[in-house]
């Protein structure tokens, strides 16, 4: 019998704790596959954040460190500086990366730390039950914006890739989505490229992945995929915001 598809060996057999229709599982798979394909499982160290993916250390089948809320890039910096041939990535949500951990994000980027950040943007705090995130859309109803996110009171959503692309320390910043098969394929290519950059010593790479949260959006999984496309993509356009090596013809 020929094996045509199997679960990545870089994922454990632990049952995922994510809600039905949540796209964390897909993103975990893309990360695991990329690390296996680049042959760096034995050097990989992942950083689990605080948030829905806090238990990522149970799901990835290589060394993992669990960081305080927002501090994953600082923890990653410590690991990478201590053992430079490790392949280090953080896996962070929007609250972790773009609210409480903004300083760690920006400064690891501006230092050009040779790490990968997988930034899962679902425009809401999932773990705590659906509060406004820095990336929540204008008008979006959440537990803490019951009348919708108002510019006058809560300001505007943060566009992380666009912001980081202005920093000289950043090698690569791309936004992808996992709402369709073609987009999942593109997301895989971006994530793999980010890890390849680290293997090649090119420096800081971030892949922002637009993701769904059917539970806290109050939608079915199928509706959530549509909501991502119709509402998030206009605010968070997909694409490469920075690719320093490509620009410099390397």
């Amino acid at each position: 019998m020929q094996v045509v598809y199997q679960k990545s060996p870089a994922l454990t057999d632990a049952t995922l704790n994510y809600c039905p229709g949540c796209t964390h599982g897909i993103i975990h798979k893309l990360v695991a596959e990329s690390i296996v394909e680049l042959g760096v499982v034995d050097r990989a160290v992942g950083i689990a954040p605080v948030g829905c993916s806090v238990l990522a250390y149970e799901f990835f089948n290589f060394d993992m460190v669990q960081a305080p809320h927002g501090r994953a890039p600082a923890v990653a910096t410590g690991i990478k500086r201590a053992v430079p041939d490790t392949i280090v990535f953080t896996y962070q949500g929007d609250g972790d990366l773009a609210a409480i951990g903004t300083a760690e994000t920006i400064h690891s980027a501006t230092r050009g730390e040779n790490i990968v950040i997988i930034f899962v943007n679902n425009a809401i705090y999932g773990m705590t039950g659906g509060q406004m995130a820095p990336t929540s859309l204008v008008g979006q109803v959440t537990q803490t914006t019951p009348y919708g996110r108002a510019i006058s009171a809560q300001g505007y959503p943060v566009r992380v890739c666009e912001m980081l692309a202005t920093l000289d320390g950043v090698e690569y910043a791309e936004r992808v989505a996992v709402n369709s098969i073609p987009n999942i394929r593109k997301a895989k290519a971006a994530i793999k490229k980010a890890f390849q950059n680290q293997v090649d010593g090119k420096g800081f790479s971030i892949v922002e992945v637009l993701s769904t949260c059917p539970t806290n959006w109050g939608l079915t999984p199928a509706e959530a995929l549509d909501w991502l496309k119709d509402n998030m993509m206009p605010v968070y356009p997909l694409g490469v915001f920075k690719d320093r090596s490509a620009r410099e013809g390397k």
Partner: protein
Amino acid sequence: MAERALMKGNEAIAEAAIRAGCRHFFGYPITPQTEVSAYMSKRMPKIGGTFLQAESEVAAINMVLGAAAAGVRAMTSSSSPGISLKSEGISYIAASDLPCVILNIQRGGPGLGGIQPAQSDYNQATKAVGHGDFHILVYAPSTVQEMVNTVFKAFDNADRLRMPVMILGDGLLGQMMEPVEFPEIEVTQPDKPWAANGMRGKRGKNIVNSLYLQPDKLESMVKGRFERYEQAKRELPEAETYLTDDAELVIVAYGASARIVRSAVESARELGIKVGLIRPITLWPFPDKIIRDIAKNAKNILVVEMSMGQMVDDVRLAVECAKPVSFFGHTGGIVPTPAEVLEQIKGIAGGAK
């Protein structure tokens, strides 16, 4: 022969850390400890080490967490307000059973306080340097030489007991220059099979973690840690005693305060007053048995601190309230003078007659 040099406390402690095998230092500028970072920034690049000036105290302690998780000797240093910022990370490091060394060159507080020497972070260091049930080891050296020697002990005990160690100094010790000898110690670092630094085809995955969602699992992790704390309490309490054999008045003071008290004790002895000094070297675990045994023969206990009196409660507990314990101190960056302490001694000794 051991190498001898005239050095500022902050620089001596940095050099000692390097000699103790620390190659990863993460800092952030704050008076009066900035010389530690400045020294590290000069030395580390020359020996293949890492000095990184972090974006905040919060980031610095989390870089220490990462480096310690990867299995290397890592250190950060700060002064009082900065330690408050590090407290989140210290709790996580303790809960992840990671070793590291944290230096606090204390200044006056609360808030932004001042930049002159103080000892008002005693309670923070020994009782609550972060949320949750945990302790860290706390050493309180009183000379530049002792700061140097303490660094080696700190790293060794951090590794052995897998817990953070704080060296609690103050602006006086950090800024003063004294002759120091760097001990010729062959540093051996233990294997760290738990470190998250890549499986390397040799083992299964390692997880460095502080999350336990099952209450019974969390309780058992905390209890396991407290067994190591009991081991620390059995093995580590240290105090220096001075002229306590016949002392009717025993003064308890640590760090820079103890040096001032020592001068006052000598002056009082010249006046025929039977007074002695106990200088706790470990603040956690607290040398309560040493204090209790000596206090049995004393009539009065006096605690002298550069604070409003934070160690005084631990001294009362140590003597089980069997003897009157009084307090003298200054706070806010004022260093008590030997003359002031002598007046206190005379007052208590006179009153006791």
